[in-house]
């Protein structure tokens, strides 16, 4: 610091400026902190940019129609209209749609977890003829667009009499999901084989090894499966749209869509934003508590759900 000051003093004298001007220049410490500061400023402005739609949704949720389209926009509702939330709960038929969503959610999450892990275990650890061929076939199903199989699958479910029940939305999860199977297989393969060999010597069967040895070691990846499965199901609007016909069977995502399409030009945006906020909040809470696993999922797979 003193070296800098003396250098600044000399330079100031040479240039004919008062020394304090040069003393005001950033120190080395400040200099080294500068890139970090810039990163923080950049990060904060990007996060504000990403957060603003969410904040605008929340702000609009408390406005009446007279405040929503005001130009220039007002962020703070005055007076606030919390009644929008009550109307939104009514329009969403919240108790029913939330219960339906939870039923489907628990069915698909448990199903995905159990079926995908057991299939992934089989692909990773067990030895059986044609294993690799089946693995490739299983992987190739990920390449088929959902639209291609939509109608044949619908025909089957209709033939089974499952349309307008939760079964078409839950049962497929109990037959393994290719992405989760792939994810779990890769994780199982990273566990040292000696562990399962030791268990086998101690008399443990294949299912015992899967249940007692492998699954407890896979908690991080199982958390990722739970999280991704939760998000997929919570946000799924298309499946419920196709398979559910009665309003008493609707999920929150479907009810939200109906709410946002009152009658085109006759939409109440305050209520729609309140409904959107209600639907988004559980996802935000889950993300808040599970963001570690969420990031882990992205690093493991390179994919974001």
């Amino acid at each position: 610091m003193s070296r800098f000051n003396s250098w600044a003093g000399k330079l100031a004298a040479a240039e004919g400026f008062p020394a304090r001007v040069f003393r005001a220049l950033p120190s080395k410490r400040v200099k080294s902190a500068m890139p970090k500061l810039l990163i923080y400023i950049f990060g904060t402005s990007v996060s504000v940019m990403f957060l603003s739609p969410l904040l605008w949704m929340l702000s609009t949720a408390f406005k009446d129609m007279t405040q929503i389209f005001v130009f220039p926009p007002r962020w703070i509702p005055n007076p606030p209209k919390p009644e929008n939330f009550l109307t939104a709960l009514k329009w969403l038929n919240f108790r029913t749609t939330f219960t339906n969503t939870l039923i489907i959610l628990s069915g698909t999450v448990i199903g995905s977890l159990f079926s995908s892990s057991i299939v992934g275990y089989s692909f990773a650890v067990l030895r059986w003829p044609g294993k690799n061929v089946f693995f490739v076939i299983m992987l190739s199903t990920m390449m088929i667009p959902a639209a291609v199989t939509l109608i044949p699958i619908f025909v089957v479910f209709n033939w089974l009499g499952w349309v307008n029940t939760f079964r078409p939305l839950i049962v497929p999860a109990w037959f393994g999901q290719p992405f989760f199977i792939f994810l779990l297989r890769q994780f199982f393969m990273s566990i040292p084989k000696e562990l399962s060999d030791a268990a086998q010597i101690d008399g443990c069967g294949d299912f015992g090894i899967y249940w007692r040895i492998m699954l407890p070691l896979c908690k991080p990846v199982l958390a990722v499966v739970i999280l991704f499965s939760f998000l997929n199901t919570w946000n799924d609007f298309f499946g419920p749209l196709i398979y559910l016909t009665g309003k008493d069977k609707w999920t929150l995502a479907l009810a939200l869509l109906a709410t946002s399409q009152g009658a085109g030009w006759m939409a109440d945006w305050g209520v729609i934003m309140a409904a959107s906020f209600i639907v988004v909040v559980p996802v935000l809470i889950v993300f808040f508590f599970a963001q570690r696993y969420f990031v882990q999922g992205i690093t493991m797979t390179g994919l974001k759900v």
Partner: protein
Amino acid sequence: MRSKLRILSVCLAALLVVALYPSFAKVEIVFWDPYGPPWDKLLEEGTANIQAKHPEFTIKHEHVPWSGLIQKLTVAVASGTAPDAAHLWGTWWAVNLGVQGVVMPLDEQIAKDKELSLDDIYPGYLETFRYDGKIWGFPDSAQPTSWMWNKDVFSEVGLDPNKPPASWGDVVAFSDKITKKDSAGNLIRIGFIPNNMWGGFYNFASHWGGTFYDEKTGKIKAYNETNLKALQWQIDFTNRYGGQEVINALQSGFGAGADEAMVSGRLAMQLATHYHYYFRHVAKPDLNYGFAPPVLPGPIPGDEAKGGMVCANAHVVFASTKHHWEAYLTVRDYMTEGIKAWIKLSAHASVNRKVNQRALAENWIAEYYPRELWRQDMQVLEYNRPLAPIPNFSKLMDELNAQTDLARLGKKTASQALQYVDEVVNKDLEKVLRRR
């Protein structure tokens, strides 16, 4: 032997019951509608009215949000599980799906129907559903336009509040007096906004007497003298007040309630329809407005407009239904029974003129809606002109709105814009008809 005979007769009786059961069971009509809350209740009330009239069959009302309806319908049609009937947003869906064989023509049912007289339906509304000589559905309601103006703004600028413009020239002259700008040149009030209406340029040009369809060739002909004049008028009007971007900036501040264009005094004249009156009533019940027929003489002699275009949604019966007659009755009676709930709330008119006369006589029109306006609407409806009877009508609307936007922005001339519409839409039409 006797016991064998007994068993055999019991078996036969059981078989007979199983075979005849469907004919004894009450027919169920599945009806899809795309409305969400709170408007879904109006549709449900409409269904209940029809159900009360037809206790011999059951109507199962199912809501399918509009943005997913076509996808759900595609799956349902392909898998043979389509509903019996549906309400679709946009009249053009009837012809579009009719050409694809998804919805059925109603002519056979109409021919044996003793209750319905097609003469009771306003001609423009009926013709919109006629294609290839067949009727592919019914309109749900009628939405006539009227000339609406803010009397307080008229008084403020020294115009006679009881005298609406009598020509498109008057619209310009009145707008000159009404329009206000701030010191930065931003509009804070305007007399009229040319495209601020349902249907955009198609509707505007219809009020000028413009047409978009050539019956002889069966093709779209947007590029014609009247449409050119109408679009040129829009361009000149827009430029007079600073250009499309300046008007867009004013419009971006329009909202609902107190910020609604006419309620806030930022727009003084409009070609309005019943829902403008409804929302203005909700936001400002004491709004001092005037109304007049939407017919302004066009600049071309003898080219007077005939009340604008048809504005409605479609009720269709699907070709896969097993209950043609009951499904037909369901969509037919929406025009008479189902519409009542809408008339009471928001003054939608029926497409059946007898229902409108009854609504007036028995006084079940929404209270706030002026009875004189209702009478005027009934006259306007007689002149509403059908939409171009083509299966790709939505393509025409999309292209027309996009191209006329470009023309008002000064990026194309009126001729270039309309010629482009003809070219693109007719090419698409050929493709659609080839796939038929």
